[in-house]
């Protein structure tokens, strides 16, 4: 209990100091909002073109597809707020050797590296994404009941956990490939497939996005849950995938540390 309290107090200090340093760069807010608006407008235009001609994406109505886009936007916001600032910095910490300081602190190093900083400029994207998803779900005829809300929230949490674990595992590889590993871009490219319902893709890609890269669990499954049409099996599977990837990321980090601490100079 005392241990948890210490982590909580540490987290508050982490984010307090991060906000303090970010406030010196207010212009970032404008840039991030503009970038989001551009991205969103592009995706909306594409959906409008497709559905305007009476076509459909993988059997999804326009409103249902907008739920997916909303969740994608929300996840992108979480990436800008938490994942990119923290996990993107792991490479630098390895290069500059400041990882040593983290490893010598009496605190879980994965916790430190994953939560050390926070960029508030992704928050508008999170709010916009959530609003879009809810608005589109209501238009698509979703009935907000306790089960739908709980299921949707659980699925969103799972998708954040899956995305985090995937990203963290890729960032961890920088321990071995210190120099030329630009993980962020690889992952962003893969994630951008999650803008549209998974069934809109050809069968081969669909399998890839479900089994190899869990893109389906990132946006499509939570969207189904919010729309109230996800089967219990998918919900369970999603939670299982989230738990497994989180555990895997912890195991993988320890594996990497073993190599780091036996080889670094």
């Amino acid at each position, binding site marked *: 209990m*005392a241990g948890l309290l*210490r982590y909580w*107090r*540490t987290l*508050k*200090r*982490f984010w*307090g*100091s991060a906000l*303090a*340093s970010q406030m*010196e760069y207010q212009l970032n807010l404008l840039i991030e909002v503009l970038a989001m608006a551009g991205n969103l407008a592009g995706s909306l235009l594409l959906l409008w073109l497709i559905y305007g001609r009476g076509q459909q994406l993988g059997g999804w109505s326009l409103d249902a597809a907008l739920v997916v886009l909303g969740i994608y936007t929300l996840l992108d916001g979480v990436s800008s707020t938490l994942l990119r600032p923290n996990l993107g910095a792991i490479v630098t910490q390895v290069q*500059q*050797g*400041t990882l*040593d*300081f983290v*490893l*010598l*602190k*009496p*605190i879980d190093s994965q916790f*430190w590296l994953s939560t050390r900083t926070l960029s508030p400029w992704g928050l508008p994207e999170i709010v916009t994404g959530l609003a879009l998803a809810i608005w589109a779900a209501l238009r698509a005829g979703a009935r907000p009941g306790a089960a739908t809300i709980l299921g949707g929230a659980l699925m969103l949490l799972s998708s954040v956990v899956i995305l985090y674990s995937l990203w963290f595992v890729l960032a961890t590889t920088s321990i071995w490939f210190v120099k030329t590993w630009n993980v962020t871009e690889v992952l962003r490219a893969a994630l951008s497939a999650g803008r549209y319902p998974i069934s809109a893709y050809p069968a081969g890609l669909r399998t890839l996005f479900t089994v190899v890269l869990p893109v389906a669990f990132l946006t499509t499954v939570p969207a189904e849950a919010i729309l109230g049409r996800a089967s219990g099996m998918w919900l369970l599977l999603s939670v299982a995938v989230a738990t497994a990837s989180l555990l895997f990321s912890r195991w993988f980090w320890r594996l990497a540390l073993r190599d780091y*601490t*036996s*080889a*670094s*100079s």
Partner: protein
Amino acid sequence: MAIIRAEALSKTYRVADKQPGLAGTLRHFVQRRHRDVAAVKGVSFTIEAGEMVGFLGPNGAGKTTTLKMLSGLIHPSGGMAEVAGHLPQRRQADFLRQITLVMGQKQQLIWDLPPLDSLRVNAAVYGLDDATARRRIAELADMLELGEELTRPVRKLSLGQRMKAELLAALLHQPAVLFLDEPTLGLDINAQARVRAFLADYNRRHGATVLLTSHYLADITALCPRVLLIHEGGLFHDGSLRELSSRLAPCRLVRLELEEPRPAADFVRYGEVEACDGRDVRLLVERERLTEVVARLLATLEVRDLEVSDPPIEELIGRLFRQGAVT
């Protein structure tokens, strides 16, 4: 009670053996060759609680590697280290609370923020309550002569101020064992002296054990009664600086100022003539013969002034490192 114990501590790195150029890169890609490089070879020593020990050696001698093994950042390839009753490489929380590592060329303070923000983070990580943290920050800031610098962004501090703030951050949890790797690197003479005075003061107040590496011998002479000299991965000397200098050069330097000029040949029988410039003579005399030689010099010559000293330790150690091989 020994707080640091190293027994036959060794570290071997496996490095890629790659020829330069594209061809070399391709060959390396197809058939990887590795070479084992022994950075530390069977080093043994013990350090008692409260001691200040200097760690000397040329670049690449294995000083940093040893410090990293003792602080638990890297695993030894052989032998054993024990610090504060723990195996360092396990990095148990109880062990980490008792040690600190300061590296002159790396910094833990956040660049964009005042040191105080980083200090508050450290206080939370080490589970210090606000009152304790405030009291310790005040005490250390006072000892380090840090004031408003703590509320200025780190990027706007001078190198000396930044190093002092780094020390503050590293000592906030009151560690019992300090591993300091080049803590005065790049500082000007004044800043070096202040850091030195602080470390001595801290050691007196808290009885902390300090293991310190430095390129500046002045740091070691001022702070460390005991010196470990590591050379080509092995421990060459463990004892006082004075013993080290007598080991490196079992001679003392005798300077004479004579009334009348004398030729160098007159002094050959007393020892090694370093310089003979008419009236001024510099002689290296073996320690055992020193009193006898001085007595004979005074008896047979008209001496205006006579001075006996140790040859400068920097020169002796420098000579050792340049020679490479050690007898």
